[in-house]
């Protein structure tokens, strides 16, 4: 009986070892499906990894809950995967579980969002949008656009609709927003509130602002979904979105392009979700034994607006109508 048990165990172990050596297992702990952007991000990475010869994907949807993601990361450690891709729903509280990942010596790739503890842990590579730069571009676009229509010297009231409090996209974009505002003294900040990155809350926040703030000229929404929600609230208040109130979104989802082409929104600063094109080569390089330093790898991003041609210091805006047909998400 003992012998049989031993044999079976040995066989199982053999199968496990051979299976493990046959493929590279890449685990991905994603936040959830909070928006179109996130869906595009997930689909892009999933497709690229699943279709890569010799790679296997273990995907976990965190359903917007930190505890789910922590659980998933611990599962990945138990499964002894080869790489962990990780996007955290909030920026704090990851120290312990990420240290466990380090101790298990599984290369960690931080995707899209950097946790606060990033400088205290080891990671193989980090990819992410430059949120501060996106925030800066939003304000600079509004300032330069106002100049281009001859309103550069007029006092203009601006409101900033922030994302989920504590998310690195919110802290980064807010930092960029506020820094850039200093170079445009005519832009007066009259409101700042979180819309939680969702359409419904963007709508409710704008609805209240339209009543509590006598005059709003520019809305800076830290993602397109909140901007789209706000558009409905602006219409309900009898104002014309895109004309009475200039709307600058962020992310560049398809629905924002539709709104810009329809003239209901003015600008969207791109934050591309298509990470596979640099995540995949990075993992291939890591497989070859190459090393990366801790600097975040930024994707190349654009700014899209109604007419194009607004110079923002680092990029020039592109007319949304010209590229809408090429948008994949």
């Amino acid at each position, binding site marked *: 009986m003992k012998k049989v048990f031993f044999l079976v165990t040995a066989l199982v172990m053999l199968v496990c070892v051979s299976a493990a050596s046959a493929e590279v297992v890449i685990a991905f702990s994603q936040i959830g*499906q909070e928006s179109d952007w996130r869906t595009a991000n997930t689909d892009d990475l999933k497709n690229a990894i699943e279709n890569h010869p010799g790679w296997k994907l273990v995907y976990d949807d965190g359903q917007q809950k930190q505890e789910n993601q922590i659980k998933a990361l611990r599962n990945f450690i138990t499964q002894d995967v080869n790489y962990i891709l990780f996007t955290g729903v909030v920026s704090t509280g990851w120290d312990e579980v990420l240290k466990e990942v380090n101790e298990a010596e599984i290369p960690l790739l931080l995707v899209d969002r950097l946790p606060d503890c990033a400088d205290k842990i080891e990671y193989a590579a980090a990819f992410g949008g430059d949120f501060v730069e996106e925030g800066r571009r939003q304000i600079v676009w509004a300032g330069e656009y106002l100049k281009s229509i001859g309103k550069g010297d007029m006092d203009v009231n601006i409101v900033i609709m922030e994302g989920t409090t504590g998310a690195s996209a919110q802290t980064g974009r807010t930092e960029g927003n506020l820094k850039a505002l200093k170079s445009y003294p005519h832009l007066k900040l009259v409101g700042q*509130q979180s819309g939680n990155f*969702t359409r*419904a809350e963007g709508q*409710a926040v704008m609805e209240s*602002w339209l009543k*509590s703030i006598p005059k709003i000229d520019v809305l800076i929404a830290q993602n397109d979904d909140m901007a*789209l929600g706000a558009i409905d609230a602006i219409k*309900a208040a009898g104002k014309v979105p895109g004309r009475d109130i200039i709307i600058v979104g962020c992310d560049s989802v398809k629905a924002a392009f539709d709104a810009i082409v329809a003239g209901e929104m003015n600008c969207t600063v791109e934050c591309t979700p298509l990470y596979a094109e640099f995540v995949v080569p990075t993992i291939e390089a890591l497989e070859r034994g190459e090393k990366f330093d801790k600097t975040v790898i930024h994707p190349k991003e654009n700014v899209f607006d109604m007419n194009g041609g607004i110079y923002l210091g680092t990029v020039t805006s592109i007319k949304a109508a010209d590229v809408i047909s090429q948008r994949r998400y």
Partner: protein
Amino acid sequence: MNKRFDFSALMQSKVTWAVIAEVLILLVCFAIRPDFFSISYQPSTGMLYGSLIDIVNRSAEITIISMGMTLVIALGGTDLSVGALVAVSGAIALKFLRWDVLTYTTPGDYTVYPYFLVLIVPLVVCALMGLFNGFLVAKGGIQPIIATLILMVCGRGVAQILTDGKQFTTGYSPFRVIGQGSFLYLPMPIIITIIVVVAVALFTRKTAFGAFVESVGVNASASRLSGIKAGTVILIVFMITGLLSGISGLIYSSRIMSNDSNNAGLNFEMDAILAVVIGGTNMAGGKFSLAGTVVGSLIIRTIVTFVYYFGIVSEATMAFKALIIAVVIVLQSEPVREYFARRARRREALAGGDAR
């Protein structure tokens, strides 16, 4: 008949304190900004326009769900699945409106399947899901909090599978009417809420059903012995709650003209339970107050609107909400109510003495 106004009973009622709390919050709003109360007519939408309207309008989803939740709590249970059902309802509606976003690529003023299916299927599915909850509780003898946990957890998953994890957007104008339309100068969600509240009130108070619910909530076995079919009552209550979650989901998704499987109805179960508790229904079951629940739901929304209107900084929002709710709950606590009731009784006794 010489029926005296019973002041001490009034002060002891939790509903009174809920109303007082709501009035106090509104008074604070009024003190800071009197124009918080301004209501005007908005010609472009044909609706009344003002913060008070917003409060009632945006409380619709929670008010509607908490009508069902009141009955569930009166039975001595809780329904945790309502938020997930909101997401399911929205996902089904958008699925029928758009069906396949790869074939019908741009959102427009069209629906792929007939409009009545868009409305009926989500409601039927949600009612069935509610019935499933009720079945587990009534026939399976599972505690409601555990039974409804199943759909709470997997409901959102179902919603995501239905729409391939995508957010569908629509421009179909008849669908917009539910969340953004108007009737009699009022936003449509308010009208729907009024209909639901009246319907539930009539069903529970004009028939014996309300009494059955309270009886089962106090003691299920005793009610069974006295001839009430406890199981059937439980089934009906959970089914109603499911159906109401479905209605709420249609309103939510119509407001944003899309489904949002992760955020639609998120934490609604908590808000609904809170509304019921603030409204004075005891979590242990028994007597319930639908009017109190409506006030509870309004309080929750008033706080949110307060935060937006007065620009409470995002970081402090949660703490601020918690603080107000803590005050409301303390105001309703037994010792506080007892204190005021005693004072009222003493005053009445003094007044009685004078008359003699």
